[in-house]
């Protein structure tokens, strides 16, 4: 119940009820006011006397009875009526159109009534003011007619008269009430709107960890409950984020330990091979040892890639984008790789110019990882070509790094892009940093392009 009273709906219903009530109250007050005012006004005629239809009927009847009446008789009739209706005026026009007698007529009447004038008079007075009754004298129309006139005003009730006087006040009062209602509604909705906008702003604020922050709840209405629900959601988000971080930490820890445990025996095997190599042995044995050594290096790289791949697939490999001079990054990466290529007898051609914007938005670790994986591939799989070229390319649409070798090509790799786990990592990282890449490979070599669209 308390809840209902605190709700915005209840508040608005209150406003509406109040408005209706006020409206009624104003009418009531005005009615009382008008009524008390009308008490002070004297009624000239009773409601029976002020009956237009009755007057008309009676006038016609009395006119009929005047068959062959004299002027005196007519005047006497007029006097009788005059006693009853002091404000009335009467006159008689005979069959010749002569105005025979009249009583208290204020307007100018012609002495001779032509048919045209008679017609005009009837037309003017029909349903007009003063209230006019025209009755034929006697039973037929040949004896002329008598006319009774009375201003309609004198028949008005006191209520009608007060209404005439105070009607404007009533209208203005009603209008004020309506405007008051509109104004209150406006204030009400303005208040709600303001709070909703505040709420929206507060909801958009983010903490350092990228999560929304709690909102202060100041009222217990619908918006207040919305704020509470939002706060609850924030708490739940935070909890789930925390859980996710813990899981992430566990997973990373697990992978790091696993990788450590796998590498330790590899190191031991490596040590044994190294010791063996010191001894004198036939060329075939020495060759076997070299193959073993290379296999160990391969397994090492595979473990590394497998771990990264697992983390990447689970989106647990954090992407930290920042502006980096990529030309410089590529050059420094090449500087560390150059000795390895030199040792294998590669011809290394480097033609790195500058782009219009050397700073790309990249994760430096990811970017280096991409270069490492690609260069490693050249060293391992394109060794037969003994050639590596690293170039930059700039067009209107993109900037790109190109890596080219003269190896045997990656058979089938273009069809099944990302078949190698190292290349899958390159693919995910390149796409993750909103860049693109292309592989063109045939029997005479491979060209890889890392593209940044403009």
């Amino acid at each position, binding site marked *: 119940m308390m809840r209902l009273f605190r709700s915005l709906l209840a508040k608005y219903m209150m406003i509406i009820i109040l408005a209706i009530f006020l409206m009624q109250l104003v009418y009531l007050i005005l009615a009382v006011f008008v009524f008390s005012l009308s008490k002070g006004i004297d009624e000239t005629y009773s409601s029976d006397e002020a009956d237009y239809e009755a007057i008309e009927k009676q006038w016609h009847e009395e006119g009929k009875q005047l068959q062959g009446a004299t002027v005196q008789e007519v005047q006497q009739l007029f006097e009788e009526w005059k006693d009853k209706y002091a404000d009335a005026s009467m006159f008689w026009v005979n069959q010749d159109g002569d105005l025979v007698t009249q009583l208290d007529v204020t307007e100018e009447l012609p002495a001779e009534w032509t048919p045209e004038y008679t017609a005009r008079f009837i037309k003017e007075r029909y349903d007009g003011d003063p209230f006019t009754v025209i009755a034929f004298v006697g039973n037929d129309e040949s004896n002329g007619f008598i006319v009774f006139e009375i201003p309609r005003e004198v028949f008005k009730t006191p209520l009608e008269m007060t209404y005439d006087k105070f009607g404007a006040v009533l209208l203005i009062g009603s209008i004020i009430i309506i405007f008051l209602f509109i104004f209150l509604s406006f204030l009400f909705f303005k208040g709600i709107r303001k709070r909703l906008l505040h709420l929206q702003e507060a909801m958009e604020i983010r903490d350092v960890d990228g999560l929304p922050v709690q909102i202060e709840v100041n009222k217990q209405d619908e918006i207040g409950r919305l704020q509470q629900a939002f706060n609850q959601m924030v708490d739940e988000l935070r909890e789930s984020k925390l859980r996710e971080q813990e899981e992430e930490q566990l997973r990373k820890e697990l992978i*790091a330990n696993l*990788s450590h445990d796998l590498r330790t025996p590899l*190191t031991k095997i*490596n040590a044994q091979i*190294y*010791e063996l190599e010191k001894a004198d042995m036939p060329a075939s044995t020495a060759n076997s040892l070299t193959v073993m050594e290379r296999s160990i290096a391969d397994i090492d790289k595979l473990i590394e890639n497998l771990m990264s791949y697992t983390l990447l697939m689970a989106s647990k490999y954090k992407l930290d984008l920042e502006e980096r001079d990529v030309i410089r990054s590529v050059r420094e990466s*090449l*500087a560390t790789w*150059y000795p390895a290529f030199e040792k294998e007898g590669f011809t290394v051609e480097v033609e790195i110019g500058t782009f219009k914007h050397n700073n790309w938005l990249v994760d430096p670790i990811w970017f280096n990882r991409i270069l490492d994986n690609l260069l490693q591939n050249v060293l391992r799989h394109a060794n037969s070509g003994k050639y590596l070229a690293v170039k930059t390319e700039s067009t209107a649409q993109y900037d790109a790094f190109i890596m080219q070798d003269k190896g045997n090509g990656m058979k089938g790799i273009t069809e099944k892009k990302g078949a190698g786990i190292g290349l899958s990592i390159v693919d995910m990282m390149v796409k993750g940093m909103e860049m693109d890449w292309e592989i063109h490979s045939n029997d005479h070599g491979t060209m890889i392009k890392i593209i940044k669209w403009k």
Partner: protein
Amino acid sequence: MARILYIEDEMEIGSWVAEDLTSRGYEVTWRQSGENLEHYLKDIDIAVLDVMLPGLDGFSLGKRIKREVDNLPILMLSARTAVEDKIEGLSFADDYLTKPFHPEELAARIEVLLRRFQKNEDILEIGHLKIDPKTMLIINQNTDEEILLTGKQFYLFQYFIRHLNQILTKEQLYEGVWGEKYMDGDKTLMVHIRYLREKLEENPAKPVIIETIRGIGYRVKI
């Protein structure tokens, strides 16, 4: 000869590395944990630490060593290859090598660190030059005359000597020697390298001491 403190709990790997480094002429102290570490710190030139150790791990040990002996180079040798590990390692250590590694690689990295920290006092012979890395005395063996380098040339060559066998990019050289950010198109470095070559090389048109690695940078190699 340089003295190495090597901490590794794996018996097989430890004995193999200790043996190999000893055979290369180093004086190796191999311990299986970081206990009583402080006794050795005064008498060593470089520390090689494994990360996963019983008790205090390699990262904590390394940080403690750095706090106590600031100018002692530390090389982390670990089977943990996660980027986070490398980043944490390199926040205090001077190099990070992952297992499995080749003993040649380890020896080469140790040499680089010793030279960078000027722990290696061996006289270097590069081409026709004889160089004392400690005093930077350069003797032309063809004429037995000392080569005198002026200001920036001296620092530039010293930078090369401390980063022997490493390819250094223009940016790295400029920022290492001048201590300012390299601006693209700046010719200062090129001019100084030309002067340096005129003094050091037998034939400055065909330099052999300071190699140009086309498109990447420069290198002084033994």
